[in-house]
């Protein structure tokens, strides 16, 4: 398991473990993800001295670039997208020496033979010692093709004490059946322990802090159950539309794009039991137990527990924006949802009777991804003339983006001769409490994949169970035309979503 550098020096005392020598191979290196996230993340890791000196990074794509053209392209991409701004020429020089490029079609076996030859050469020249991390930043249709071909040339074989890992981007399938088929194909070549399914939400500081907050403090956990928590809301709101991703998005929708993966991952961290250890197996085991406790939605209850919406024209920040069906590369009669809300029951001892409400949407008034734990009202208020209903119950909010942090609302007395109560808020903001800037999610996840820690990746049984929960929602929606568009861009979503909450006597938070 441990492949991090075997150092005689005092690691842990300021000194970070760095990954063992390795080759990182990025499939889809000419694509958007590689430009905006992967290369900047690798460069930033290098800047922080977190990459091994013996390393090669190989880009693979169809675009016919030379090594130097690839380097020039990546330098521009890093300068534009890195959180550290323009590249430092000297550091870049060292980094660029390790960049290689191989061009070819993903279904052409010759590409993999050339890749294999190049990697063996790097083992000899750069000391990369046979370790390989393959990153699939391609369209999902290529995932099985690439895995299969890597297997054919022996690049998935770990028998010599080396590692061969496969990092898979989302989406992992389009529904339960396609996800199972994809997993079946990958598993013919790579064992589960070799597969790292990226869910970039798990790389975010607040998401990891959720575990620290819950299990590093005493004061929250005793209240973290059905007895004290009324309900939980998890929201992923974007003010953006599909921004040129219409082609992909129109085939996916908010349920597949955000809710099934990111929000279920967050939900499982909010609801899970304390793991004995913060290690990969224990954490995954606890997460999957939560997901298994959620009864899959049945077709006949879809209308009751789920709501879908699609935005029409409207205003964002005072600027008129088109409706979804008028967006580029979107079918003008599209039935794809850009808003999804789902009520989830976690049927276990801890949570029975405390619903979790999830919603994910585009073109809401603001961008905000937050977890809100709404506590129950106090059973009785001893203050005369202050009815219990008038007091806002405690609310713990964890902000995942844009500004990571947490806040807790509680009630305090307004100064004066009478007992008047007012809700106040304690606020903790990452940016202002710690000197360090938060690393990009991709930096953390790439580093974890390199050192072989899969805690923050999605295990297959989690992905499969999450698909099981929503599979019949997908079926129901695919089989019936919706009355779209049903909310204006810049509004808080369709009426049906408010109705979903109103049926339970609750309402969505205004973010």
């Amino acid at each position, binding site marked *: 398991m441990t492949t991090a550098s075997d150092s005689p020096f005092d690691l842990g005392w300021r000194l970070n473990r760095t990954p063992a020598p390795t080759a990182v191979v990025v499939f889809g290196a000419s694509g958007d993800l590689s430009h905006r996230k992967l290369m900047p993340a690798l460069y930033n890791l290098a800047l922080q001295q977190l990459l091994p000196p013996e390393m090669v990074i190989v880009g693979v794509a169809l675009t016919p670039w030379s090594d130097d053209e690839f380097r020039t392209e990546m330098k521009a991409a890093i300068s534009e997208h890195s959180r550290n701004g323009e590249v430092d020429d000297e550091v870049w020089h060292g980094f660029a020496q390790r960049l290689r490029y191989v061009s070819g079609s993903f279904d052409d076996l010759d590409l993999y033979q050339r890749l294999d030859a190049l990697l063996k050469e790097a083992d000899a020249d750069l000391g990369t010692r046979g370790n390989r991390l393959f990153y699939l930043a391609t369209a999902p249709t290529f995932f099985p093709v690439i895995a299969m071909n890597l297997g054919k040339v022996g690049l998935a074989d770990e028998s010599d004490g080396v590692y061969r890992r496969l990092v898979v981007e989302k989406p992992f399938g389009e529904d339960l059946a396609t996800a199972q088929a994809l997993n079946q194909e990958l598993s013919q070549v790579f064992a589960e322990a070799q597969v790292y399914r990226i869910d970039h939400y798990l790389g975010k500081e607040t998401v990891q802090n959720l575990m620290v907050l819950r299990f590093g403090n005493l004061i929250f956990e005793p209240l973290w159950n059905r007895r004290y928590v009324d309900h939980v809301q998890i929201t992923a709101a974007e*003010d953006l539309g599909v921004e040129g991703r219409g082609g992909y998005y129109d085939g996916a929708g908010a349920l597949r794009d955000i809710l099934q993966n990111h929000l279920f991952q967050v939900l499982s961290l909010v609801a899970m039991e304390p793991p004995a250890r913060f290690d990969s197996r224990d954490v995954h085991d606890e997460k999957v137990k939560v997901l298994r406790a959620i009864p899959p939605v049945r077709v006949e209850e879809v209308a009751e527990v789920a709501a879908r919406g699609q935005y029409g024209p409207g205003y964002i920040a005072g600027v008129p924006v088109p409706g979804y069906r008028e967006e580029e590369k979107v079918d003008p009669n599209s039935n794809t949802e850009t808003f999804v809300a789902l009520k989830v029951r976690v049927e276990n001892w801890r949570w029975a009777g405390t619903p979790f409400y999830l919603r994910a949407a585009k073109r809401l008034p603001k961008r905000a991804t937050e977890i809100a734990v709404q506590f129950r009202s106090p059973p009785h208020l001893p203050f005369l003339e202050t009815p219990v209903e008038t007091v806002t119950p405690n609310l713990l909010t964890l902000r995942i983006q844009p500004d990571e942090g947490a806040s807790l609302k509680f009630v305090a007395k307004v100064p004066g001769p009478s007992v008047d109560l007012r809700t106040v808020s304690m606020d903790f903001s990452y940016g202002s*409490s710690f000197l360090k800037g938060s690393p990009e999610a991709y930096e953390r996840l790439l580093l974890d994949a390199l050192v072989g820690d899969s805690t923050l990746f999605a295990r297959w049984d989690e992905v499969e169970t999450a698909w099981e929960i929503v599979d019949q929602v997908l079926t129901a929606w695919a089989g019936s035309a919706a009355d779209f568009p049903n909310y204006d861009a810049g509004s808080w979503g369709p009426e049906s979503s408010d109705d979903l909450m109103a049926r339970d006597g609750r309402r969505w938070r205004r973010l």
Partner: protein
Amino acid sequence: MTAAGDTPARRTRASAAKKAPAKPSASKSKAEAKTTAAAKPAASTSKSEAAKKPTATKPAARKPATKTTATKKPTPTKAATAKKPTATKSAAKKPAARKPAPRKARATSTRPAGTQHEWDGTVTSVTELARHLHALRVEPDGRPVPSASVLNLVAVADDESAHEVESIIESMSDHQPSRALIVKTVGGKGGIDAHLETRATVFRGRASVQVELIRLMLHTDQPEGVASAIIPLLRSDLPVYLWWPGVPMPDDLLYREIEDTVDRVVTEAEREPDAMVALAQLAEVVSAGRVSVTDLAWARLTTWRQLITQLIDRHHADRMRRGSVLQIWYAGAQPTPDALLFAGWFREAIGDKLMVELHPRADVDITGLVEVHVDAGGPQHLSIERIPERESAAVVVYTAGRPTRRRVLPLPSRSRSELLAGELEMLRPDVPFERALPRALEVGAA
């Protein structure tokens, strides 16, 4: 965490204290409060949020702080940027129209905007001072100004370093909410000249933090009393760091007094004239074992040490344990503390069969450690040379029978304030440092 109302409009409101001491103190203290509404835009990524909250720019009127008898001209500080309010006759009751914070025009910069309050004056007691400080932390309606605090930082500065110490603390304060006390003693028979400054910052247009800077000049001939002036001004239940820009003499009365109240001491051997003397003094302070100690020269080595851990694995180290040579080049005429500590750390890891050679390098325009060669007592050689003005090093690994590998690897250089800030994130004793220190003295003496 911050106790705060939840509307951003309230958070950004500038306020000088309303709850000034009820009775002006007899005659000794003179106070003046200034309020600055910073015009720096706060960052935000959400356009819609900015558009939604135009009310946040509403100017808020407030009162200046105290009405005490003037005995001393207030010291102007460079941090005060806003003009004093002008309109009214009564100096004590000038309402200051706060400059609207331009929330609508928020740029992508992460520099915080916010408000700032100051107070200068002379007091006879710390209690009085605490009252003035408290006054700066209360909104006009009586609510406390939101504040998030993670630590107390005490800096002991002489006249020469006071200004620099202060500017470093200021440069950190945007991100490290804390209470900083800069303490100086001058001879005298009592009385404290004080400057208080609190700054509420709006970070990314949302969270508000408050940073407090307290500058004290104690008129006393008895350094052993200094701690009694510091303790009441510390925020309770938070770790206390002492920054000593130099290395204290082990029997320094002032140091001994303060040491008992702090959790960690950060020294700077590099600011002492003789590195060996400084390290010897430091070793004595460390071995007294009363408090965990660290030095910025050691912190500066972290990036070097990180590089070494990546280049020397266990097999390599095992070979070195059978006999090897470490050559170190430092800038200047005398070995620098970081060069000595590096050698000490290396010797500690490898053992007594490591020969260490220290060489000066006069041809470079940098300070501290410049170049390191490791000869592993076999057909293997490693060299690391810092590239001046770059964040990187040229690394050459030679192994007989294999192609020589030359690479440029990152070697970030850290400023003094970055190093200090890094130290403020650690509380536990730094065992490798404590072990490297006597080894460094051993190497330096040889």
